[in-house]
């Protein structure tokens, strides 16, 4: 019991932080306590804007420009980081506290080779000599399961893929064998299949060296694999802290419970489509190319009335390109798009107003999808007037009805500008604009991926309700399998511009399936803290991530 204090590595007490905007300081963190013991991993989760990255950096005694710690104490191994001199802090950073950033591609200096950047810390801090450290770097690369560990260090950052760079950065953080590493959303920018590889590597190496870590993320399932303890933040306040299993099994706070519940939303299964039914949209043997670079190869699938087809795949698989072919922005090289059994002209400019009206789109980034200079009323009224020819009071009534349909109070929102709305509200306006055209078919392009989980769930429920009321057909482009599970009736899996597999949702989530689908499905983290361990036991380290894709 006497040794208890020295066991504590990081001790933050009553930390308040402020950020500057327009010459005034506004609070970001409102008094958070944090305690981290040696060798322990703490997961820091919260929505965007919760202040988790800011808090993570504060644990290193570092603040970005325009941010300051206004109150509280930060101690690292008994050293008061807020009162320490710049020289003392410099001596700790990199040597005893290391940092792994979200975007490895941007955080490596483009002008130097990876290994040169790796050895810089140990050499500058006098931990190891250059050669010794380089040798150690190669060993670390090997431990992190990087391909060609002897050579990869002699490459420049832009010559290495994102998942590999992220592991190189972890190796660099390990170069001085620090006591603490801050991981700031290290896998957020990666595809699911790559993410799992990086997660496994990070967990393994942190375990091996018994390093303490603060793991910052917005993804609950990820943090469940990595952390011993979880701390939930909401808008700069701590919601609750508990060890991982307790937190997952029995959250005490309302907010935490609601976060957990998001993943349980699932729609009832719809009856199988009649085989003789005419699909609302049929994509038939479409080949497409950007200039001379082919991107789609013989893509075919049907979308039936009142149903949702989720198109799944990683970035670059051709999901969005297929959408561009359907809307007519990218006329296919061969093959055709049919609406209600009739072939649509390939180029949108040749389509009739009615054909254009039937196919509407909702975009991923609501920020760029709404004209910032138009009021909400104008944005929704334009298609009403353009397609249906309504004017004056009639138009206003229709817009009000649409606003009510998307659960926004018309009198309150009609005159507002998009910049005055939250992300979720903006996305609802995007939906209203699509609905205003009274279409049969709506393409939803990653509509929830830029939103926080709770907000995203609200959007999904709204879309589901609208589909039931208006018999809409959705093409749902996503890379998130949780979303697929929640809303899809049928699933189309794409890879490298080809349809790998398609069928009803029930079948898709049940084996046997195509090895790629299998890999994709198995790579999606689950809320079970043993999921990663089990998966690695089941598949073996060589059968996950890019390594597995390469084998196909």
């Amino acid at each position, binding site marked *: 019991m006497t040794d208890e204090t020295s066991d504590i590595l990081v001790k933050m007490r009553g930390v308040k932080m402020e950020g500057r905007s*327009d*010459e005034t300081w506004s609070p970001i963190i409102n008094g958070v306590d944090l305690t981290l013991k040696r060798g322990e991993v703490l997961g820091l989760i919260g929505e965007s804007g919760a202040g988790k990255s800011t808090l993570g950096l504060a644990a290193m005694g570092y603040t970005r420009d325009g941010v300051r710690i206004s109150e509280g104490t930060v101690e690292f191994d008994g050293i008061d980081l807020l009162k320490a*001199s*710049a020289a003392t802090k410099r001596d700790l950073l990199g040597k005893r506290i290391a940092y792994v950033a979200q975007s490895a591609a941007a955080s490596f200096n483009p002008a130097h080779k990876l290994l040169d950047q790796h050895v810089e810390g140990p050499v500058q801090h006098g931990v190891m000599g250059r050669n010794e450290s380089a040798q150690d770097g190669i060993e670390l690369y090997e431990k992190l399961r990087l391909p060609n560990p002897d050579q990869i260090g002699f490459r420049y950052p832009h010559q290495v893929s994102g998942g590999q760079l992220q592991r190189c950065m972890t190796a660099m953080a390990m170069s001085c064998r620090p006591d603490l590493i801050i991981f700031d959303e290290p896998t957020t920018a990666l595809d699911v299949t790559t993410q799992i590889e990086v997660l496994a590597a990070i967990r393994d190496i942190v375990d091996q060296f018994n390093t303490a870590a603060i793991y910052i993320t917005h993804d609950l399932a990820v943090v469940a694999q990595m952390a011993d303890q979880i701390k939930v933040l909401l808008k700069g306040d701590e919601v609750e802290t508990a060890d991982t299993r307790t937190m997952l099994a029995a959250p005490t706070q309302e907010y935490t419970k609601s976060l957990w519940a998001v993943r349980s939303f699932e729609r009832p299964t719809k009856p199988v489509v009649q085989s003789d039914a005419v699909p609302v949209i049929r994509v038939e043997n479409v080949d497409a190319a950007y200039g001379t670079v082919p991107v789609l190869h013989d893509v075919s699938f049907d979308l039936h009335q009142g149903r949702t087809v989720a198109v799944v795949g990683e970035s670059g698989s051709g999901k969005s390109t297929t959408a561009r072919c359907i*809307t*007519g*922005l990218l006329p296919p090289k061969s093959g055709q798009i049919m609406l209600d059994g009739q072939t649509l002209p390939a180029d*949108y400019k040749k*389509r009739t*107003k009615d054909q*254009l009206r039937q*196919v509407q*789109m909702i*975009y991923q*980034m609501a920020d*760029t*999808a*709404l*004209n*910032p*200079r*138009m009021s909400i009323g104008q944005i929704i009224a*334009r*298609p009403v007037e*353009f*397609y249906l020819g309504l004017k004056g009071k009639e138009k206003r009534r229709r817009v009000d009805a649409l606003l009510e349909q998307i659960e926004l109070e018309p009198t309150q929102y009609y005159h507002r500008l998009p910049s005055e709305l939250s992300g979720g509200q903006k996305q609802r306006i995007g939906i209203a*604009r699509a609905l205003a*055209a009274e279409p049969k078919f709506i393409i939803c392009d990653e509509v929830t991926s830029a939103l926080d989980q709770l907000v995203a769930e609200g959007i999904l429920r709204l879309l589901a309700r609208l589909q039931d009321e208006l018999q809409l057909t959705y093409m749902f482009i996503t890379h998130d399998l949780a979303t697929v599970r929640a809303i899809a009736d049928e699933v189309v899996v794409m890879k490298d511009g080809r349809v790998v597999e398609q069928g009803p949702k029930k079948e898709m989530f049940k084996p046997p399936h195509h090895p790629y689908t299998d890999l994709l499905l198995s790579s999606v983290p689950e809320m079970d803290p043993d999921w990663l361990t089990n998966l690695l036991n089941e598949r073996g380290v060589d059968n996950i991530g890019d390594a597995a894709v390469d084998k196909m």
Partner: protein
Amino acid sequence: MIVWTAIALVVMLGIAWAFRFAGQAVTGNAPKFRDMPFGVAYGYVLGVFVLIWLVWAYLQGRSSDPAVANKFFFLRIAIEGLIIFSIAAWIFRLFGRSVGTAWSRKMFRSMPLTASFGILTIIIYAIFAIFAGVIAPYGQEQIIPGVAANIIPGGDPAMGGNPEFPLGTDQIGRDILSRLIYGAQNTVGIAFATTCLAFLLGGSLGFLAATLGGWLDQILSRAVDVLMAIPSLIFALLLMTIASVWAPELGIPLTVFMVIIIAVIDSTRVFRLARAVGQNIVVMDYIEAAKLRGEGLGYLVFKEILPNATAPLLAEFGLRFCFVFLTIAALSFLGVGIQPPLADWGTMVRDLGGFVNFAAFAPLAATAPLLAAGAIALLTVAVNFVVDWMLHKSSGLKE
């Protein structure tokens, strides 16, 4: 002189070290002094020395010995001018914060002093330009009967001046002060018209190129590349030479040619910006949504693109105005710009430039050319201050 400066700089090294050491000792090693690099300490000391020198120079300017006072006269005027302008800008900002609509008051609240100085100056110029006929004591082309030509500025009869003509008269007996005031109308007015023309031309073509793309964009962009490969002042001079031959033949004033030539040359820069801004907007999803809705080109340009391009275009208008204004001033100074008998600042600087050499014994005599040149500089500085603030504000909002 150089040796003394070097010694002073070395002495300051010692003072800087002492300053930092004293700071550390007095404040009990507060972080500000403890982590202060030596360069920063040196910077503080240097700054203090410059301030002390300025105060000394100002006092010299007020000295009772005319020889010493003359020598520091301009420095004194500059310092006094700076202080007066700062106070005026401060009062103007205070005024703007309490009067006007909620929107304008909010603008003034977040405004730096430089920007409020800029706005105040622009307003004053506008008043002079519009009401030049009322303010100026004489006409711009008026040769005042019974008054000698070449009256020395300064109004000191002992030097050959005349208090009735504080800035003197020019070589054919016109009042320089009146011509200076009319210059606001001519120089600023012509520059403004030229900039508008350049914007109309470059802006509309730029947006067209951005929206339509394809071969039109290619042709226009390549043409602009070629035009921009020739330095603009050089190109303007070349074309002005040709125009000066054509002008009498066609009976069109050379000034009209100048407006067109500069507008065309400058429209290439506007084209570049308008195209870039347009392209940034065109890739937005809301434009795609409008295209897919089946909207026509007119709706796209006027309802979707233009409203989002006003902020950068307005800032660019300020910068282009400065550029055009300086080009016209330079051409006039070189003798091929605005043609007499129109009063114009650039021409006046060229005609009166020799007076600068009298500054050593009669400082006021040198003010006439400096006022004309300063009038040009002051307006462009003012516009630049406002544009700088606008750009800063719009970039700050993005973050």
